[in-house]
């Protein structure tokens, strides 16, 4: 295993979350955070929806590593949208020298077919490519300081990462099996952290808890929980309590409103109270879920809901928050409580199972 002077040993950040929680945005912001101060980071898209291109406002990404952002201190983020068919052709080429034959197969629809009969094949190709970029070296140096993966949603993440089990069932022999074993070695090492994005809503929090249980079961290293789109209450504290209880009324607002001479009188004051109550109760039902998030027992960072459409400026703002979190995590790692070490199995993992088998 490579002994590095990096503050954090984690180099592969896998970001998952329930659909709609903003995992692509968080993955992109995390990549920017890791690139600050001169880091070279690869941001990988696995679901073929070109969400990264949209976020960075670039044309759709081809199957090649393209720079999408620069960060201070000479840092940069490159992005890659993995195309499964291309990855399979790469693979045929690498192992069998079969690129041209592969193209012919694609014309026959055979590659579609192969990925359809063995859904795990898709994931093997994707994770294989991810592993390759994590371990790639040029002139003896790592090409990327970190790789961030915009991974499939929580419902699929364990299966996605647990390729060995999936493929062992279907392809009990052959090179795919060998390949998956190498990938698993990296995924289960302390170089990897699977982060979960959630909202303060019932289903996302529940799915996060389920995913943590599944990932633990599959011996995959769990990183942080990112609570996304967090809002602060607009109301001052005294009014907030009454609003949450639902006892705030137009009469409470009327004296303060009077100097503004607004139309609508009491009717308006009542309507404003109704909206304030809804606002407060919505906030309160989110706030209640904080306890459940805390009970997950993972390092947690809250990211604010930003007004307006998501753009590069917003991404850098979120990245700033994540940088603080990464620094705190790194300090924790220095004191010997790294993300991986917090996983129960972290301590008893044999040395041979770490990334050096790549």
């Amino acid at each position, binding site marked *: 295993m490579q002994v590095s002077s990096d503050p954090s040993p984690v180099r592969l950040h896998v970001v998952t979350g329930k659909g709609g929680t903003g995992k692509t945005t968080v993955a992109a912001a995390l990549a920017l955070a890791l690139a600050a101060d001169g880091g070279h980071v690869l941001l990988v898209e696995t679901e073929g929806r070109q969400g990264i291109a949209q976020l960075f406002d670039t044309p759709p990404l081809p199957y090649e590593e393209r720079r999408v952002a620069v960060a201070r201190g000479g840092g940069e983020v490159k992005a890659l949208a993995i195309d499964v068919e291309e990855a399979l052709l790469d693979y045929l080429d690498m192992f069998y020298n079969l690129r041209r034959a592969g193209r012919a*197969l694609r014309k026959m629809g*055979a590659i579609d077919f192969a990925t359809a009969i063995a*859904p*795990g094949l898709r994931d093997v190709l994707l994770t294989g490519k991810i592993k390759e970029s994590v371990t790639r070296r040029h002139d003896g140096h790592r090409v990327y300081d970190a790789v961030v993966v915009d991974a499939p949603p929580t419902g699929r993440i364990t299966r996605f990462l647990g390729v060995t089990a999936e493929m062992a069932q279907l392809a009990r022999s052959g090179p795919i099996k060998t390949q998956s074993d190498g990938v698993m070695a990296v995924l289960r090492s302390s170089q990897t952290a699977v982060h979960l994005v959630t909202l303060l809503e*019932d289903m996302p929090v529940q799915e996060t808890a389920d995913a943590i249980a599944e990932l633990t079961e599959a011996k995959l290293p769990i990183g942080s929980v990112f609570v996304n789109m967090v809002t602060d209450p*607009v109301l001052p504290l005294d009014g907030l309590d009454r609003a949450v209880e639902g006892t705030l009324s137009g009469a409470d607002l009327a004296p303060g409103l009077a100097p503004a001479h607004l139309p609508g009188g009491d*009717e*308006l004051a009542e309507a404003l109270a109704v*909206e304030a109550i809804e606002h407060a109760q919505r906030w309160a039902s989110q706030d209640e879920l904080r306890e459940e998030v805390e009970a997950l027992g993972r390092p947690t960072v809250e990211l604010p809901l930003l007004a307006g459409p998501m753009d590069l400026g917003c991404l850098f703002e979120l990245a700033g928050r994540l940088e603080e979190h990464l620094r705190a995590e790194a300090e924790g790692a220095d004191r010997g409580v790294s993300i991986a070490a917090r996983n129960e199995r972290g301590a008893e993992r044999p040395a041979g199972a770490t990334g050096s088998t790549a």
Partner: protein
Amino acid sequence: MSAPAEQPRSAKPSRPAPVAPAMDLEALIEDPATRIVVCCGAGGVGKTTTSAALALAAAEAGRTVVVLTIDPARRLAQSLGLEELDNEPRRVDVPEAPGELHAMMLDMKRTFDDIVVAHSTPDRARQILENPFYQSLSSSFSGTQEYMAMEKLGQLRASDQWDLIIVDTPPSRSALDFLDAPNKMGRFLDGTMIRLLAGSGRAGLKFASAGFMFFSKIISKILGGQLLRDISAFVAALDTMFGGFRERATATYELLRRPGTWFVVVATPEPDALREASYFVDRLSAEGMPLAGLVVNRTHPPATTLLSATRAEGAAERVIEADAEGADLAAAALRVHAERMIQAAREQHLADRFTSAHPEVAVRTVPAAAGDVHDLDGLRVMAEELTGPDDDTPTGTPRTRILPARRA
């Protein structure tokens, strides 16, 4: 199977947004001629809650209704008595409802297994059920869930136990997957490729072309030879089972075109969800399937439209300057209103864009609840929002809209 119909949807900025017709879901679910309602839309828009709320409303209107859910939130499932995954409808206790509400959660593997068992001898069924390829196909082939949802719908309809079946569609990325999956799967299982592959493992290679033998060699190189043998055994067993998956898929699909079936498209007021809804509406019209309308779920209509966002912001500043008693609270309430107006305007704008492209599609907006809907009371509130009279709102804004027409 035709490709998804992508009709050009041109923006017409010069014309004011047409007014969407109102959707009368109450009449729809109470009509004895309505036998199936399919709720579809992108993932995460509230299809399951919408289905359950409509089913509750139908039961309270006196109908015997079953709601087929795919992947309900745990607490909602519990409130419907769906802890047990037995793949059969269960009666939900709704006090004082003149009708009956039944609910079930789809178990896709079990539904697939049941088809196998129903169509073959015990020996053969066991052979198939134990086949590793079948196990992978029935639990993880993309589209199995959609296909099995349709299968189950077919079974429920055939049993004729219910006046009304409400179906929640699987949480796939694209709403179109629900319509495409059965055919995709049928095509796959009946396809040349799989037949040839099966043949290459079974009857020798005398009919296979050189190109195909090469293909087969590669597949076995990549996936290992065992998989080919499993597929071959599976296809052989399947052949004797019934006339082919494609025919079965077509028959199930036809069910959706029968009179008495209605589609309700659900979206949230977000660009992606409404884009999906738009594709789906085009597709339904291309397939001649009846559309009841669009539910725009989780909207944020303001409690008053007397004050615009800009004026509310200005008023908040004046209130702070005047510093009367309770100024902080009053100013905060004004800011809450300003945010609310901005959000509502954005949502209305998105809904208007949908209506510009599909002026004939009826719309019903459903305001967001403060928390998650996870019990019968929450469902009842939502049912009220779905089926209540169009103009019966606190601000008088019709339920087809989020803001009054003139403000948008």
